[in-house]
């Protein structure tokens, strides 16, 4: 874990230096990323207002949900935002072999090289928004709620990383991923709605089968003091998915055949 974090910080440093070589582009792209997060959240709120609200969510609670969502999307974008493109390019151009020569395991090397420095502004905006709304919540907030929120948040990031590991494993096998990246982005999109908005089987799907509720729904519910036992099922499934994703990666790694580069 320590090696992973060190490599992650190193990758962020390198990306920052590289981005600053084109300063104007860097500032412009960071600003646009930040603007996009706000626009996306505004759209979600407009949709919320347009559909006359989601069951069990007041406007203020939806604002907190949106702030958590910005923080979560910013965090995963900062940590793994460039990973899908990295594995695509490395495999298509036959450069993946070098991952086997590096001192750390291929999975650690891969996951620590997919950072996206342009998402830094989004993380900061999400942090500021979440803290401001938490202060507004005031007395309703408990230490247990905060700890549960942190647990769900980290598990959500972990589960997202597991999805990326599966994606990367598939890339070793399929080489060119065509529309699969868009499908992955669409799955992230479904996590940006409270799970209560879904109907019957859809709700079960986002809570347990594919526990995307861990991304923003359960952390917000924890902050609101409404976390339920069902969240444990999401956590357990995320853990099972992570183990299965690593096992899948190991299998794909063994089956990988170099095509030169």
């Amino acid at each position, binding site marked *: 874990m320590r090696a992973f974090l060190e490599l992650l910080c190193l990758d962020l440093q390198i990306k920052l230096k590289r981005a600053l070589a*084109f300063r*104007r*582009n860097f500032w*412009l*792209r960071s600003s*646009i*990323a930040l*603007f*996009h997060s706000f*626009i*996306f959240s505004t*759209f979600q709120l*407009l*949709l919320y*207002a*347009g*559909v*006359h609200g*989601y*069951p069990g969510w007041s406007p203020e609670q939806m604002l907190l949900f949106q702030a958590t969502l910005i923080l979560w999307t910013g965090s995963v974008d900062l940590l793994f935002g460039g990973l899908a493109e990295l594995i695509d390019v490395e495999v298509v151009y036959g450069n993946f072999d070098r991952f086997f020569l590096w001192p750390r395991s291929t999975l650690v090397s891969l996951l620590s090289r997919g950072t996206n420095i*342009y998402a830094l502004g989004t993380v900061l905006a999400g942090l500021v928004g979440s803290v401001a709304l938490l202060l507004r919540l005031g007395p309703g907030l408990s230490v247990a709620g905060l700890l549960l929120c942190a647990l769900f948040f980290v598990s959500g990031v972990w589960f997202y990383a597991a999805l990326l590991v599966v994606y990367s494993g*598939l890339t070793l*096998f*399929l*080489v*060119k*991923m*065509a*529309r*699969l990246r*868009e*499908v992955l982005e*669409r*799955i992230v999109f*479904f996590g940006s*709605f409270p799970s*209560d*908005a*879904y*109907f*019957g*089987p*859809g*709700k079960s*799907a*986002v809570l347990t089968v594919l526990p995307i509720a861990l991304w923003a729904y359960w952390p917000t519910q924890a902050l609101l003091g409404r976390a339920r036992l069902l969240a444990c099922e999401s956590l357990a499934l995320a853990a099972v998915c992570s183990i299965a994703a690593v096992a899948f990666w190991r299998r794909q790694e063994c089956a990988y055949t170099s095509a030169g580069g």
Partner: protein
Amino acid sequence: MLTQLLGHQLRIRLEYRGSFLFSLLLHPLVMLLTLWMFQGIYSHHQLDSLLGYSLHQMVWYFGASHFFYYLVWNMVDKNISDRVLHGRMDQILVRPYSLLTWELAALLSEKLLSLAFELIPVWAFFTWICPPDFMTVRGFCQYFLFTGLAVLQFFLMSFCLGLLALRSGDASSANVLKFVVVNLFAGVSLPIVFLPAALQQLITVLPFHYLFHTPVSYLLGTAGPQPWAAALRTAGKQCVWIGAFLVFARFSYTRSVRHFQSVGG
């Protein structure tokens, strides 16, 4: 050249058919999640129609955003920017075709194959999951007319953005900007009717709604039954925008290419 590029793209698709089939299999899941989400909202509020959209129309609106990515969305600006950044622009500039012609031919070949191999199967999946009881033959034909024009319009817009790389070296910010603008002003992420009235008026003045909102409103019939005369008038306005973008693209290319400095590859 278009035929050769078509053959080339077809060979690529057949070579990587696994990922293509896999992504086709995942699309019903995406459509089902969209259906379940809106079923939950409509049934909770006991709605038959929401801002003029029935449940099936709403689901198809979000489903149609996939068709937008198959048929209209392009990465022309990113392709140009990457070539400049990685020193691969020289080989394009010495070809017997202009950059504009080459990129357009490559794009058309890609989109024609997307139409045949992606749009038709996914459309069939969507029809099976959520029958489009609102759709008419006229609306269907008008959708494809506007989508064809949108391909040209969006190509020219992306090409102009890509040319920024000839001046600045890295135009990746333009790619991100394009994504945000299209999501906001073309109605890809949300039906325009959900936006405030002032923003809706602004959107109708700008050319972006021709990319997604206009074709989809004809497909879903949300703009009411549109006679061909009205549709052709709208198409005429879009052609004026396309002409303006073409003139601007040619002008920008001749100016920008003078700033390009090859650094090898």
